[in-house]
């Protein structure tokens, strides 16, 4: 049952992306193009999402456990740090350059768009490379802690 609900969450999310226009990089860039012929539509996407989300997460806050019986995985990080800001700034540059963010790129790839496929491959490489590099950077630290 739980797997079915999660499948439908993915399906509804994808349909929302398609309907909203987020899977069209031209429309995303038209939203980001304040100085040109501006298309404000995507502000409505975020507005609609947050409107429902505030209700949904508000309900979850008043419960101890999720409906499946598992605990709520509330994000634990609280403080604003350099990683959050610099990471997000870099993400925005990539988003502006191509007009794709991760979810819409996956949906666009699934609809057979070759350019989205290349974007997703590059994005996954970016994630894996980042993890490799940060892991390597952490190793000496881990050793310094474990080895007396």
């Amino acid at each position, binding site marked *: 049952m*739980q797997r079915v*609900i*999660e499948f439908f969450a*993915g399906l*509804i*999310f*994808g*349909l*929302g992306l*398609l*309907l*909203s226009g987020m899977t069209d*990089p*031209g*429309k995303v860039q*038209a939203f980001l*193009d*304040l*100085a040109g*012929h501006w*298309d404000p*539509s995507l502000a409505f996407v975020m507005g609609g*999402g*947050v409107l*429902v*989300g*505030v*209700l949904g*997460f508000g309900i979850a806050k008043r419960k101890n*456990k*999720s409906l*499946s019986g598992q*605990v709520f*995985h509330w*994000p634990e*990080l609280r403080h*604003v740090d350099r*990683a959050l800001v610099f990471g*997000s*700034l870099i*993400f*925005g*540059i*990539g988003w*502006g350059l191509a*007009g794709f963010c*991760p*979810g819409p790129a*996956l*949906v*666009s790839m*699934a609809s057979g768009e070759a*350019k989205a496929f*290349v*974007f997703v491959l*590059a994005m*996954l490489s*970016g*994630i894996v*490379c980042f993890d490799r590099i940060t892991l390597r950077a952490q190793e000496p630290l881990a050793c310094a802690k474990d080895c007396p």
Partner: protein
Amino acid sequence: MTIDWLNFTPWTSLAGGLLLGVAASLLFIYSGRILGIIGILEGVLPPKLGDTAWRFSFLLGLMLSPWVGQWLLPADGMHAPQIDASWPMLVVAGLLVGVGTRWGAGCTSGHGICGLSRLSLRSLIATLSFMATGFVTVFVIRHVI
């Protein structure tokens, strides 16, 4: 700045946004998981024991959405994608999006929808940050270069 009234789609965009909120609420209330595409992908790169089934179920649903959408979504609500970026540009953009969202621990869904809905200060800062460079980047590629 002029407003592009011809391509302005407040209703379908709002309806799509409501669906995003429904999906994020459903996944959290039922499974207790945050709907963040990068967070979900990261957990299957490589897959970790006991923590992948929900990720694959979600991703399968996401990937089947274009196919289901052919029947469910109104034809005029479907946007034929217009991808201006060249192939090399897509590679650069993809790498930046991968590294940036991983480093910043979230993307438009995790920070922009879920985080703002939780009234998280971190996510507000993240969203303002990626929107800011998004605006600047498009300004540069469309009006400067």
